[in-house]
């Protein structure tokens, strides 16, 4: 039983890592969009939109999977986090909703001159700035040891997240996301430009290093949390749901993985090939 619960917790960690790697880049994209200025700002935003366009919608899968595992495999932890951290979690949710909507609306305006594009672009950028910070705040608060599980029902919203540590984790998350994004877009610029062969050679290395860095940070966090889900009251086995449920969740995850990973691979393969040939995306 314990083994199963650790496997499920590992599933949460893996999906968070994938979220940081794949989703992080498009969060960072919004931030870069905010920083872009001057006469070339429009072109820069267009580039960003094209670079993340085809894949950004899939990126939410990872956070959804993490939340669903937490909800089904570790109900007490889910209850504690979603009530004690009600404020940052709700704001993060709003950020995710706004980002998705703003990006979709923004891309309808891509070839307009008017204000529609700029307005949605700024909403997208601001939401991209806020959401990773809040994600980091939640992770920080969960690790800080200041969320206490009551023996009965959780008591309500806590202000424990309003302290320097969670916010420093939040800023770190933002920095990591932006860093990842920057490297992805460098590669995209190179691919879209003429000097493909020369530049492309070095970017994969840089990207792999950045990705490895993000993985190490998150895996390290997972190791430090072990064996807790929420420090210091909820350990992974103590918060786990029944054996039958855990087994079913893991079977579902494995089956889902068999479907999902080839599909994601295909997606990247298709769009990466396009970027290398420098063809613009068909709509």
């Amino acid at each position, binding site marked *: 039983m314990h083994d199963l619960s650790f496997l499920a917790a590992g599933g949460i960690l893996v999906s968070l890592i994938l979220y940081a790697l794949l989703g992080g880049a498009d969060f960072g994209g919004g931030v870069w969009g905010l920083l872009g200025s001057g006469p070339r700002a429009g072109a820069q935003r267009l580039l960003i939109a094209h670079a993340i366009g085809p894949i950004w919608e899939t990126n939410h899968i990872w956070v959804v999977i993490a939340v669903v595992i937490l909800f089904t495999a570790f109900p007490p932890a889910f209850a504690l986090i979603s009530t004690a951290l009600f404020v940052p979690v709700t704001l993060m949710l709003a950020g995710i909703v706004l980002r998705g909507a703003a990006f979709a*609306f923004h891309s309808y305006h891509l070839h307009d001159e008017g204000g529609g594009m700029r307005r949605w672009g700024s909403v997208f950028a601001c939401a991209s700035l806020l959401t990773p910070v809040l994600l980091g705040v939640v992770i920080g608060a969960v690790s800080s040891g200041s969320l206490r599980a009551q023996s009965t029902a959780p008591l309500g919203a806590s202000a424990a997240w309003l302290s320097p540590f969670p916010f420093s984790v939040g800023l770190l998350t933002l920095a990591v996301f932006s860093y990842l994004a920057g490297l992805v877009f460098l590669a995209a610029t190179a691919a879209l430009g003429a000097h493909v062969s020369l530049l492309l050679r070095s970017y994969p290395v840089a990207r792999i290093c950045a990705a490895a860095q993000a993985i190490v940070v998150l895996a390290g966090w997972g190791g430090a949390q072990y064996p807790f889900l929420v420090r210091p009251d909820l350990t992974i086995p103590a918060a786990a749901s029944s054996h039958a449920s855990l087994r079913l969740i893991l079977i579902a995850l494995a089956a889902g993985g068999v479907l999902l990973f080839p599909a994601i691979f295909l997606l990247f393969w298709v769009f990466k090939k396009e970027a290398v040939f420098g063809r613009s995306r068909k709509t």
Partner: protein
Amino acid sequence: MHLLAGIGVALGGLLSGVLVVSANAWMNSPAGFLLRDGIATAVDPLAAMANPAWATEAVHMSLAAYAASGFAVAGIHAYKLLRDRENLFHRHALAIALTVGGTAAVLLPVSGDFNARFVAKDQPVKLAAMEGQFRTERGAPLRIGGIPDAAKGTTRFAIEIPRGLSLLAFHDPDAEVKGLEAFPREEWPNPLLVHAAFQVMVACGSAMAAVALFAALLAWKSSENLVRPPFLLAVLCCSPLGIVAVEAGWTVTELGRQPWVIRGVMRTAEAVTPVGGLALPFAFFSALYLALGISAAWLLRREVSKSPSFPAPADGTPVPETEE
């Protein structure tokens, strides 16, 4: 490849709808666990998923989704055809949307009958509220319209079809139907809202099924009939009904279960988060979705007005994909 991806999306949408409804069906008919001292034990997730209400609800909701999206899309093309009758793109699109939406709309009353008979057996309080049935009686009438008055314990101003309810709910004109009075007052859902929502759903469903059957009749004679203005106007009027009926249907099943969130296991009041000041996030998310909804509607309008406006070649006509 494109078609394959479309099929994948359609299947995925259907499957996720069916699974989401499983959760709702479980709240109506909890299964797959034993309750010991208020704690669920012997949890069997597969039995919970395959709860008794799942099949009827999932079929009903899936059909409802096709009917609602089919009619919504058909309405848009009908609107376009009213202005430009010869447009082949809109003619084809209207035919496809009516075929999908119309088939579902004709099947919905049949499926709804299964739902109602299941609810009559499984959740008699909900049925009583849906039908505005206060007294327990044999040969209960079917009420069309009317205003249930919980204080007086009667439903006024309804058109009553003698023995109709007993016949529909139990397939026996003399069957006994339990009224609300058979249950403690604090177990009642709000009969006014549940009855009204049920009437709205059935009214919309009847109108849509009628239009669908009429369309089939017209098309059988000549497909030219489908672009006659009176018919197009009827389709246009029915366009929002599916979405209205879906909302009404969810109102029936959710309000009809109150005061329980998980029937017989957990009350809604016990389930709510201990976090205070919920009015604020409620207002915030309502405003957010309202704003996003308006923007989406505006963009959709723009996309629709950009659609092909001249007779497109009969073969290779681009067909808009509809999704739930």
